[in-house]
């Protein structure tokens, strides 16, 4: 049976969240929590001599941005329990201290997979991250699994 839901929700921006400027301390703390050793992410003076001319955030820093609304209102539930299925990240320009990031959220895709244990439903929330210059920073696809 084909999944039944209002397909007009796909691709519609349901949330736009603007974040306060990223601080140097926030980047250093994030790097440290992951045990990063690359001076680009951990050492302001060394990073200044590197390819970006200054400190940048590790690639997965953007995953900590939380939209005001995680899903649109009226999103149908397809299963009883939800799991975090995974993430796909595409990265463009790096995040630097002082950046004011904006997150635009859409439902990218909803699909069904049938496995040994029955049907599973995947909802893909796409978050596009832009900086204050309007540059594309990242696209984050978040796969939520329901069963």
């Amino acid at each position, binding site marked *: 049976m084909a999944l039944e839901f209002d397909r007009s929700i796909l691709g519609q921006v349901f949330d736009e969240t603007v974040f306060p400027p990223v601080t140097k301390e*926030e980047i250093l*703390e*994030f790097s440290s*929590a*992951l*045990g*990063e*050793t*690359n*001076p*680009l*992410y951990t050492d302001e003076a060394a990073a200044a001599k590197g*390819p970006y001319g200054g400190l940048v955030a*590790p*690639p*997965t820093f953007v*995953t*900590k941005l*939380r939209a005001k609304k995680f899903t649109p209102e009226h999103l149908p539930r397809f299963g009883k329990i939800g*799991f*975090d*299925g*995974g*993430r*796909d*990240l*595409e*990265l463009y320009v790096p995040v630097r201290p002082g950046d004011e990031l904006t997150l635009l959220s859409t439902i990218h895709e909803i699909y069904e997979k049938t496995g040994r244990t029955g049907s599973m439903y995947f909802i893909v929330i796409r978050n596009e991250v832009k900086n204050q210059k309007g540059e594309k920073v990242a696209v984050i696809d978040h*796969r939520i699994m329901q069963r």
Partner: protein
Amino acid sequence: MSTGYFEDIEEGDEITPIDLFLSKDQVRRYARTAHMYVPRFTDDEGARAEGLPGMIAPGVMSMGLLARMISDWNQTAMIKRIGTTFRSPVLPDRDIHLRGAITQKNEADHTVECDIWLENDDGERWVIGTATVSVPAQS
């Protein structure tokens, strides 16, 4: 640590592995900085109340650790794309192993495709994924 060039990499190469003890405190610290300070990531009791075997590490933390493995392996490499599937909850207070291998070289744009994964002592792959990484060429 390495700063190898694209020319130095061969398909099938291992990404320098990382073995680490994932402590509960490190998970709590990550959860705090990533605004994920909720019981499933901070204490065993709270996690059990949600039906989990004990506190777990956020999926995005595992993804961050795998990204760190790539950046430790080659500090001049830039991750263009990284995707991870969270197959099983990652339980802290034990050793975890970060692993990866180069599966393909793309001569046209000096990028490499990698398989990456996080496994436990029994070799169970709790997190699997792939990445596309740009590596500077010598010429």
